[in-house]
C-alpha cells in the first residue's frame, strides 16, 4: 500500500534536482518552490570540445549558466581578449541587457554542460514572480558592480 502510494506520488512530483540552481549567483537567494518553477523553463545542453555556443553578431535569446567544463569567450566584453569562464558563471547576461545581438563569441574549451534559459522566459518568470525578480536583479547588480571594479583594477 505504502509503495503504491509512493509510486502514485512520484507520478505527480519531480525529483528535487532543481535545487542545484542555487549554485548560480543569480538564483542563490530563491526559495525551493521558485527554483521548482524556474526548472520548467531551464534546458540542459551539452557541448563538445571546440563547439561554438554562440557567435558575435547573432541575436541574443538565451542566457547560459555553466554547470561544468570551461568556455572560451572572446569579443567586446573582454576588449577583444580571450577569457576562460567556468561554473558558476553565466554567458550572455550583459548582452541580454544591452541589445539585440551578441557582442562576443563563446566556444567550449572542454566538454561543457550548460543550463540554458531563454531571455523571454526569464523576463516572464520575473514578471510573474516579482519577489524573485527583485532577488535576481539584485544579484545582477552585484555581478555588474564586481565586473566594473575588476575592470578598474586591471586598468
Amino acid at each position, binding site marked *: 500500500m505504502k509503495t503504491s502510494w509512493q509510486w502514485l506520488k512520484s507520478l505527480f512530483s519531480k525529483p528535487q534536482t532543481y535545487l542545484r540552481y542555487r549554485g548560480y549567483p543569480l538564483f542563490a537567494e530563491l526559495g525551493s518552490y521558485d527554483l521548482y518553477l524556474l526548472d520548467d523553463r531551464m*534546458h540542459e545542453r551539452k557541448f563538445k570540445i571546440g563547439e561554438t555556443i554562440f557567435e558575435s553578431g*547573432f*541575436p541574443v535569446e538565451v542566457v547560459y549558466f555553466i554547470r561544468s567544463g570551461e568556455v572560451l569567450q572572446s569579443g567586446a566584453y573582454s576588449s577583444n581578449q580571450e577569457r576562460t569562464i567556468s561554473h558558476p558563471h553565466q554567458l550572455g547576461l550583459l548582452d541580454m541587457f544591452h541589445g539585440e545581438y551578441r557582442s562576443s563569441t563563446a566556444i567550449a574549451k572542454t566538454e561543457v554542460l550548460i543550463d540554458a534559459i531563454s531571455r523571454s522566459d526569464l523576463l516572464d518568470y520575473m514578471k510573474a514572480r516579482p519577489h524573485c525578480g527583485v532577488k535576481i536583479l539584485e544579484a545582477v547588480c552585484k555581478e555588474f558592480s564586481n565586473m566594473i571594479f575588476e575592470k578598474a583594477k586591471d586598468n
Partner: protein
Amino acid sequence: MKWAKILFFILMAFIVVAAFIFYSKVFVYLIGAVIFSYILDPAVTWLEHRRIPRWLSVLFVYLTVAGLIAWFTSRMIPDIVAQANNLIAILSQEGGINKDILLQVPFLHGIHEYTLSLDARIPGLNISNEFTNILDNATGFLAKLPKVLLDNYSTIIGAVSFLGMIPLISFFLLKDKHKLRKAALKLSSNRYFELAIIILGKIDSTVGTYLRAMIFEVVAVSIMASIALSIVGVSNPILIGVTAGLTNIIPYFGPFVAGGLAVLTVLFEGGPLTAIVYAGIAMWAVQVVDNNIVYPLVVGTTINMHPLLVLLTVLAGGWYGGILWMLISVPLAFLTYSLVSVLYTNLKEYKII
C-alpha cells in the same frame, strides 16, 4: 556520411511516416486539445504560481469550466434551442416557402405593389415579373436550409463526441506543458537551439494570444449583440447574438452575416421598416464597441490583412471544408503568415539562409 548513418536516417524517416499515417485520424483531436490547452493555460499557470501543483491546478480549472458550461447549458441552451426551432419553423412552413408566402411579408408586399404600379405607369417595363422571379430563386435556396441542417445532424453528434475527447487529451498537454516543450527543444541540435527557442516562443505567444483573444471576442460580441437586439425588440436575440459572436471571427464580412440574419428575422415577422433600421443600428453599435474597445484591448492590433485577401481566404476555406473552414481559414492564414515571417527573419539573422 557512413552507410550506418544513412540507414539510420532512412529508418527514422520510415518510422515518422508510419507514425504520421497511424495517428492521422487523431490529429484533429490533438489540434482541438491544443487549442483548448492554450485557452486554459493562463489560469493553470496563475494557480501554479500560487503554490498549487500543476496537475491540481488543471483539475481546479476543469471544474470551474465544467461549472460554467453547466450553468450556461441550464440557463441559455433551452432558449437558444427554442429560438432555433422557431426560425426553422418559419423556414419550413407547410408546403415549404414559396413566393406567395414571401409576398405576404409587409416589406416585400410593399415593394411588389410598387413594381406593379411602375408596370402600370410604364408600358412594357414588366418589372414586377422580374421581382417575382427573384423571389422564386430566393425561396428555392431558403427551402433547402432546414434539410441542410437535418442532413448534418450526424455530423453535429460527431462533433459532440469530439468535444468530449478534447478535455481528456488537453489534461495531459496542460499538466506536462513544460516537459513537452523541453522534449521538443531537446530534439534540436546546439546550432539551432536558440532559433528553435525563438520559433517555439513565437508560436506560443502568437497562437496563445490570438486564440484567447478570439474566444473572449466571441463571448463579448455574443453578449453585446444579444442585449442590443433585445433592446430594439428583435425576436430570437440570443440565437442571432451567438451567431454574431461566431461569425465575427471572419474580419470585414462576418458582421454582415449576423446583421443580415437580424434583418431577415424582422422581415419574416412582418416588422415595419423602422424595426429593420433599429436592428441594423443595434448591430452597427455592437461593431463600433467591438472594433474600438474590445478588439484593441484584447488583441492589441487588428489582423493586418487586405479585405480582398480575407474574401479569397474565406471563399477558399468554404470551398475546402464548408462553414467550419470558412470560420477558421482567416485566423489560420494569419497565424501561418506570422510564423513564416518570424521564421524567415530569424533564419536570415542566424545566417542559415
